[in-house]
């Protein structure tokens, strides 16, 4: 009886110590779920979800504080993938209008070189200096539209990216329905 208690108690102590040590030693600093959610988010950093960037939104989703259908650039596909990752039913995403990919373009004749748009760009995709013409790097622009409101002369507008030979996609095959009788 006593020996059994000692053996089991001892085992419990040893295993507890091992677990305690492992918890400290192999601690995961960041929540891996946040990284996974962040990987699905489109990284436009547009703030349309109400959070200052994709990472904060990912953190909020991971904590269960934000619904997963607040990201218009990610679209219905993004919501579906988030739902799959989190193991929840995808909520209705019909309030999200799907916009074609667009990039911001600065009108060179109107820009006064105020640098306000440069400060607002979340991905540093605008090049320029005070009283110098600003230019948006098309390849880096995420189309977040955050540069539009600060511009005092309204010289930035969004241009839809046209498809070219490199980005052209085969269309979904169209079924021809056969008339029956």
């Amino acid at each position, binding site marked *: 009886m006593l020996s059994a208690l000692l053996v089991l108690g001892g085992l419990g102590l040893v295993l507890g110590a091992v677990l305690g040590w492992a918890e400290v030693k192999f601690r995961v600093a960041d929540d891996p779920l946040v990284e996974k959610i962040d990987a699905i*988010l*489109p*990284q436009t950093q547009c703030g349309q979800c109400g959070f200052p960037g994709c990472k904060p939104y990912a953190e909020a989703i991971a904590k269960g504080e934000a619904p997963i259908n607040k990201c218009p650039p990610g679209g219905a596909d993004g919501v579906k993938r988030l739902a799959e990752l989190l193991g929840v039913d995808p909520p209705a995403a019909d309030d999200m209008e799907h916009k074609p990919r667009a990039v911001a373009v600065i009108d060179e004749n109107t820009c006064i070189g105020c640098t306000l748009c440069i400060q607002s760009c*979340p*991905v540093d995709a605008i090049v320029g200096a005070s009283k110098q013409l600003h230019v948006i790097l098309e390849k*880096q622009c995420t189309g977040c539209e955050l540069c539009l409101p600060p511009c005092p002369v309204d010289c930035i507008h969004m241009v839809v990216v046209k498809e070219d030979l490199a980005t052209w996609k085969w269309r*979904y095959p169209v079924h021809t329905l056969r008339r029956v009788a």
Partner: protein
Amino acid sequence: MSRTLHPFNGGIHPDDHKAESSAGLIQAMPLLARYVVPLSQHIGAPARPLVTAGDTVLKGQMIGAPEGYVSVGVHAPTSGRVIAVEPRPTPHPSGLYDLAVVIEADGEDRAVEFQPVPWRELDASSLRNRLREMGLAGLGGAVFPSYIKLNPGRSAVHTLILNAAECEPWITCDDRLMRERAAQVLEGAEVMRTLLGAAAILVGIEDNKPEAAQALRAAAAANTEVVAVPTLYPSGAAKQLTRLLTGIEVPSGGRSTDAGIQVFNAGTAYALWRALALGEPMISRIVTCTGHVARPGNWEVRLGAPVADLLAAAGGTLEGCSGEIVGGPMMGFELMDRAAPVTKAVNCILAKSPALFPAKPAALPCIRCGACARACPADLQPFEMYWFSRVRDFGKAQGYSLFDCIECGCCSHVCPSHIPLVDYFRFAKSEIWERERDKTASDEARRRHEFKTFRLEREKKEKAEKFAKAAEASKAKAEGAGAGDDPDAAKKKAILEAALARAAKAREGVTPKNTENLPPAVQREIAEIDARREQAEPPSDVNHG
């Protein structure tokens, strides 16, 4: 011959329709008035235009320089004047326009001086660079820059396979080429063999081309073996031909060079011969024009010649033509605009008619018969890939090795429900590629956003540090003055102290209020006034207002 063949699974026997165009000699296309030369005729980065509207060019002059690693040069097909560098129709399933150099021919066809390349004296690297500049790209259909494929790298290539199978129905351009110019084709292949350091050349040719095989055998050197393979579509697909001839299966996602094999098209070997023996960059190719045209045949076409002109050379399309296919009926695509030019990738223009190509019956539901899997030469399960592609579950489709699909069309051909399976696979592949592009872009955006956040933090910290440093510096300066390093320091300090003392005194002088130090009479008067005020009003703050 005694070589044992290693048949691949599946494959089909479509009507080959080769006789229509294979009878006559290769004809030279007459010089046209206008050529449209796209700058992106190869896989990879488009060439960078070297000319602008108004420039005069000579035949063979480079008009587009290779840009980046996977790219080759583009050359003027004839002499004349550049009238525009602008987007023009291209032979592409999308029908999209792409940047092209439009040349108005002057009719003189003056060429830059073509210098034969003494390839035996050049080292491999500079020879490959020459081929890159001369615009050599694979003429089998993928138009991959040849100079890259001719670099064996670290892998030891023991066998060069010359793909002369030409298994696609209707097309006979390689057949005619080998019948008429077998020696040149094999000379080109010999250069390839040397560059690759391979020991032997294997020529794989379908047994429906006995004349071409005979011509090749007559011209073949000791290290070259011409192997007739049974006519079975798609024996001309690189991986299937490799397996057929050597028994080696190139692993999924792997390169054939890892297995010691490199495959080139016969037409590419001929183009290589032209580049080295004649010094002529790639400005022409042989194209089959067949189907519903008056005089089907093969033409040597300058690259940039509009398809409409090639059709005209073939006597024009006949009554009831219902469009053209670029390439063959199995893997080709619908031509959107006859103004699109012949490029390095175009091996055949096939005019359709409802009689030759009856409309496919409407697709019916998949009955899970498995005919597609039995026909698949890549040993895939097309029906599985189809189900997942149809419902856009691309991850699962990829799990069934979607990217090993060579889009040969065998599955669609045998499907009893007439399901356009390959269309679904192409759709799924391009969707997956788009996702990859989006993923790369979003990773880049994340990296840039994180850097911006970091940069703002850093700037804030730097600013704070700068202020702290400045404050410290001024303090140190004041203290340093006391230390007396400066000979005038003591004097300055004395002046400063005197000034401070004066200021303190002045302040003391000002400090007394005007109610202090007053004569007794005035003080009394003030006290009386205060007393009266207190009596008149209740003691509250309002009286101060």
